[in-house]
């Protein structure tokens, strides 16, 4: 094992019946970094996290968390690990303080140490003044913050955050992203899963892109963007069905890839200045009108499109 690796994933497999959710993924997360698993819904991210949390036993492979095997030393793994599940996993009829106290006990905290730590976590998540209200009465964003707070109680060395910003308002989202950076600053290693390209791009030291249970690419943001070279993505909508232009545009000089989903056409090009006039020209020849154009500089979205032929948000 690499001494600086907090998480070392070694060829993990997991199937559910005929569905192969995770198909041989391997990667390393360096201590003290934020590592993002990026992929669309159904890519296998949550299954991977569940295996790394010792919730699911892999069909094959292993992983080491701070040197402890998820197969042979699950209790040691759980002791160094904080997990923020994708869903809110709290007792809604208990107050935030009661929730944190209960979960603290489950992590082995007792007495004054527990009370002190609960207060600290309430400060971290910014809910100390509303600590005695039932969680059921909280907004979605506040619940998310308590959901994260639970995972921080025992000061874990590694923290998993499984899509913690799904379905919340922009202010709470900002708050959560700031706390993730703050955790990193405190020396924690963060494994963060998301299907929001912007979050992965903003937070991560390293990013792994997953799709259909496989790791498609792995590296820093810059490394990944290089995979698509300097290609630009042009998103267009037409006044008619996209099928009319797809084959014509694929044959145009300077076009690398064309895909269409939900009425939107994405075109990867080497130089948008050269290709864009050709797109308009061929559309006109086909009696088709382009109704909107959006030019995207190379980013993770383009990487995903390049690797899978599909847009990340689909």
């Amino acid at each position, binding site marked *: 094992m690499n001494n600086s690796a907090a998480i070392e994933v070694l060829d993990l497999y997991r199937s559910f019946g005929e569905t192969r959710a995770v198909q041989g993924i391997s990667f390393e997360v360096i201590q003290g970094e934020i590592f993002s698993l990026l992929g669309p819904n159904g890519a296998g991210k949550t299954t991977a996290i569940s295996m790394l949390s010792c919730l699911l036993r892999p069909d094959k492979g292993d992983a080491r968390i701070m040197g402890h095997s998820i197969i042979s030393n699950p209790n040691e793994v759980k002791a160094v690990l904080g997990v923020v599940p994708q869903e809110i996993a709290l007792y809604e009829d*208990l107050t935030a303080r009661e929730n944190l106290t209960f979960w603290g006990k*489950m992590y082995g905290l007792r007495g004054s140490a527990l009370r002190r730590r609960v207060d600290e976590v309430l400060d971290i998540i910014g809910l100390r003044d509303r600590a005695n209200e039932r969680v059921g009465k909280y907004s979605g964003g506040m619940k998310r913050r308590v959901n994260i707070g639970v995972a921080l109680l025992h000061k874990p060395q590694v923290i998993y955050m499984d899509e913690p910003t799904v379905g919340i308002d922009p202010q709470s989202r900002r708050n959560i992203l700031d706390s993730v950076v703050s955790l990193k600053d405190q020396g924690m290693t963060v494994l963060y899963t998301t299907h929001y390209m912007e979050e992965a791009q903003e937070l991560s030291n390293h990013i792994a892109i997953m799709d259909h249970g496989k790791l498609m690419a792995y590296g820093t943001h810059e490394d990944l963007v290089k995979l698509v070279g300097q290609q630009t993505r042009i998103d267009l909508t037409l006044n008619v069905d996209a099928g009319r232009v797809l084959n014509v545009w694929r044959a145009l000089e300077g076009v690398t890839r064309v895909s269409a989903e939900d009425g939107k056409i994405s075109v990867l090009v080497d130089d948008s200045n050269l290709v864009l006039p050709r797109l308009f020209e061929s559309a006109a020849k086909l009696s088709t009108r382009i109704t909107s154009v959006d030019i995207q500089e190379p980013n993770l979205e383009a990487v995903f499109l390049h690797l899978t032929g599909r847009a990340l948000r689909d």
Partner: protein
Amino acid sequence: MKAIDIALKDMSHSFRSTSAVVFMFGIPLLVTAMFYFMFGNIASEGDFSLPRTKVVIADLDEGGPEFQVNTKNIPGGKDAHTMGQLIIGILQSEKMSDLIEVSLVPDAESAHTAVDSQAAQVALIIPPDFSKQFADLNGKAVIEFYQDPTLTIGPSIIRSILNRFMDGMSSVKIAVNVFLDEADPKDDVLAGQVVDEYLHISLAESDDPEKDLLDVRSASSAPVDKSAETTNVLLRIVSQIMAGMMVFYAFYTGTSTAQSILKEEEDRTLPRLFTTPTSQATILTGKFLAVFMTVLVQIIVLIIASKLIFGIRWGEFGPVALVVAGTVFSASSFGIFVNSLLKSTRQGGAIFGGVLTVTGMLGMISVFAAGSPTAAILSDTVSLLVPQGWAVRGLQQVMNGQPLASVLISFLGLLAWGAVFFIVGVLRFNKRYA
């Protein structure tokens, strides 16, 4: 320690839920109160009395020279020369007249006809050899008890009186048997004195022998400005209903509390618990402990509340504790077992309703069949097919002051049911979360 933390958290959840509290405590007490006030209000108006039970007696007892007891010591037996006349005397005594109306018929057929035609509710046929059989130390004196099967209260009163009488007389036989084993079997005079003395001690020394014969041990000691007999019979009914309600809702609580395992699974808090350094065994132990503790609290509260509100006398602490422990274990394990069969709480609603209603009604059938001899025998057997039946039986036994050995059998029955449910339930949950 973590298991206790989980159990306390679950209990706090249960007792914070208004609907859970209503079902745990409110409804059982409310149903019992309905019966209590239904009779109690009438009683408080001063004109309450149970309808008099019409009893026809065909006294065919021919007596016999062997029957030489000094009957002056037996209540109602002052002019009796046979055992049959003794019984008639007791049932015709003045203090019984508010409850029982006795008429005599010449033969068994007339007695049967009177009941069949609903001219009477109970027929007693005292056979010709009744006194002889009683006098014969190896004989068995039997009375035929024939009743209207649709009635419960009146026949149960008559049966209760007869049982007490026959118990007392059986004691005399035992005393004579013991005497004859120890003394010269031909010493008839001495034997007669023993019988006489025994009757004197066991029955005649009472200030109110008829009251003794009517005493129903499960009834309340709460002071009500009515005759003790009437009050006792009414409260006996209330006690039975309370016992039945308590068992029914204890099993309901066991099942609904155990549902928290499925609920936590759906709310994702259970998987989250599994990500903490807490073993699966500890987590499930905590969840099971919560079910046991909740049912235990429920039963204790109901016993105390019903004692305070209705004056129900539950019995001696030891036997009651034994039956309560068995009921708690059985009800909780039942809940764990039923929930282990379910995939989700959505399935629970329909299945709980069906399973709890069917098993609950089967278990309580003996409460409603009391007083009907044929139905009682059948219902006693049928009710033991479900754990609720054992719990109801155990409570009836402790309320009736039955010996610990009898209560122990009910306790073991509850334990056996509980063990089966618990083992299957735990195995299924362990497999589910493995």
